[in-house]
């Protein structure tokens, strides 16, 4: 690294819900600060596998991405919800990693499915730490959204792999979620517990990093009026039922305690699916036993561990490439127009 080249990602434009996110900040719930971190932790694992590095902080992009420039030679991985993306005008594949040479411009457009896309870089984004993590936790007032003009520091990149892809199972269109009983499930009448499993829910437009509202088809849910429940610990995945009878599934940036009763808790392995469900997506819930949930967790962790071995070379068929000459056919080279070394 020369004295004039800073390892950084330059932001020329950013959507309103772009933040730096990592695995979050465990260890502070006793002080009222929830863990936070990426809404779709699976996307961070996928980026780590593609880039051949440990899990690192990434840009989480809700809704729309932005326009970014490499302040130095970078490697990038695009994971999570697929978004339209191009490097110096040439479309690039999502769920893959690419070279982004110094000066190259990465344009990330709107979502094509899902809710949160992720831009990771080799070496990881490395803005200043707050209480041991770099993720923004806007609900708690930690950090802030990324804005045009930001230059985000990038860590030292020890890897070299680019042009690799990862086949990803669809978790971007809702579907079935496994739940376990929560500490308050039994406060709900049996009829409602049974109905939770047979009801079709639609992900409401009202959703943010705290949680997502899911609207039931048919009768509302709720504990008989007048019951006052003492405020109790809340964990991500908890399905909280507020006054209007539409459950709210709590996610990464949820509060640490709350008074509204919780009907059930979505298991961690299925959290990416609810975090990534776009507005209007259909969701269903299914109770599983604790043993089934733990088996699912073991399978989920095994799949994460296996992920680096599923990465494969990104082979382009010339016929699929609309602008062949615009492409960098050899990693690290470019047409020279934008990348003045």
């Amino acid at each position: 690294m020369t004295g004039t080249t800073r390892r950084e990602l330059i932001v020329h434009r950013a959507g309103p819900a772009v933040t730096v996110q990592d695995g979050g900040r465990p260890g502070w719930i006793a002080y009222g600060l929830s863990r936070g971190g990426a809404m779709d932790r699976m996307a961070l694992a996928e980026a780590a596998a593609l880039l051949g590095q440990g899990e690192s902080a990434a840009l989480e992009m809700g809704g729309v991405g932005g326009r970014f420039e490499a302040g130095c030679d970078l490697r990038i991985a695009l994971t999570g919800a697929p978004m339209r993306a191009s490097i110096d005008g040439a479309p690039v594949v999502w769920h893959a990693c690419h070279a982004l040479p110094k000066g190259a411009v990465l344009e990330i457009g709107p979502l094509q499915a899902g809710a949160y896309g992720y831009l990771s870089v080799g070496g990881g984004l490395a803005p200043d730490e707050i209480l041991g993590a770099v993720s923004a936790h806007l609900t708690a007032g930690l950090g802030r959204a990324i804005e045009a003009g930001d230059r985000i520091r990038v860590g030292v990149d020890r890897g070299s792999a680019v042009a690799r892809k990862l086949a990803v199972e669809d978790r971007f269109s809702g579907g079935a979620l496994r739940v376990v009983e929560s500490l308050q499930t039994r406060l709900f009448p049996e009829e409602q517990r049974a109905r939770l499993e047979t009801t079709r829910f639609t992900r409401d437009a009202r959703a943010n990093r705290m949680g997502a509202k899911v609207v039931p088809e048919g009768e509302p849910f709720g504990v008989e009026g007048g019951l006052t429940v003492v405020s109790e610990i809340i964990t991500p995945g908890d399905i909280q039922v507020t006054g209007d009878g539409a459950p709210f599934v709590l996610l990464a940036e949820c509060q640490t305690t709350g008074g509204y009763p919780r009907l059930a808790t979505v298991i961690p392995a299925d959290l990416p699916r609810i975090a990534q469900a776009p507005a209007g997506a259909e969701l269903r819930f299914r109770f599983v036993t604790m043993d089934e949930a733990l088996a699912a967790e073991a399978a989920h962790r095994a799949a994460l561990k296996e992920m680096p071995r599923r990465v494969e070379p990104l082979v382009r068929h010339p016929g699929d490439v609309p602008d062949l000459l615009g492409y960098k056919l050899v990693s690290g080279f470019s047409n020279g127009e934008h990348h003045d070394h």
Partner: protein
Amino acid sequence: MTHTSSYPLLRTAGIDGMLVSFGDRLSEPANRAALAFRAALERESWEGVEEISSSLVSAYLRFDPLAVPHADLEARLRALMGSRDWLQAELPHGRRLHRIPTAYGGTLAPQLAEAAQVAGMTEADAVESLSSARVRVTALGFAPGQPYLGELPEVWNIPRQQALTPRVPQGALVLAIRQFVIFSVTAPTGWRHVGQTAAPLFRLGAKRPFLLAPGDEVEFPQVSVEVFERMQDDPDGGASWEALP
């Protein structure tokens, strides 16, 4: 619906949490029990346990369920639960008494008069009552360092308001159901805004980033608006503390 005899009650929270509760509503003994049980869990420092906290009447433990089988942890917790009468537990050691100067009423805290009226008091009596009360941090929750403080005298057993106040500023001292909350961030609330404080509850980079800890005691002595304005330049917002025995 209350089964007092079933407490302490052990329940799971998600797949990786266990919760030991000492009551189904806030009470002084249940809160003391929760704090003491949490302190005991911290002393035990069992392998596989990743995080410990307490809420109003419960202690919570997050663990790696693949490293520590549920049955093992449950057995340990039940043994600890049965090892003593937690409702008789003393408060944790290392507690502090904080004095956080507060401007009551006026434009800084516009709902004092309304709260006093609901409680059936004059505004002056309300200030007298609130500024001389000593309350305890029963739990931190919702936002970083944000305390639930209780319990105020019975006269303050007033309900939440019907509609939410869209936003109260950081430092707002709000009141309902015999409790105070101080807001660590600007937020909406259904509680009434009776006082305004200037002490930061959460200070990044400080050796002790969170001003208050569960079990600490707090008083809110009254200051004039002029004094309050001056305190805003003080990094401690005029707050002071001393160790409790």
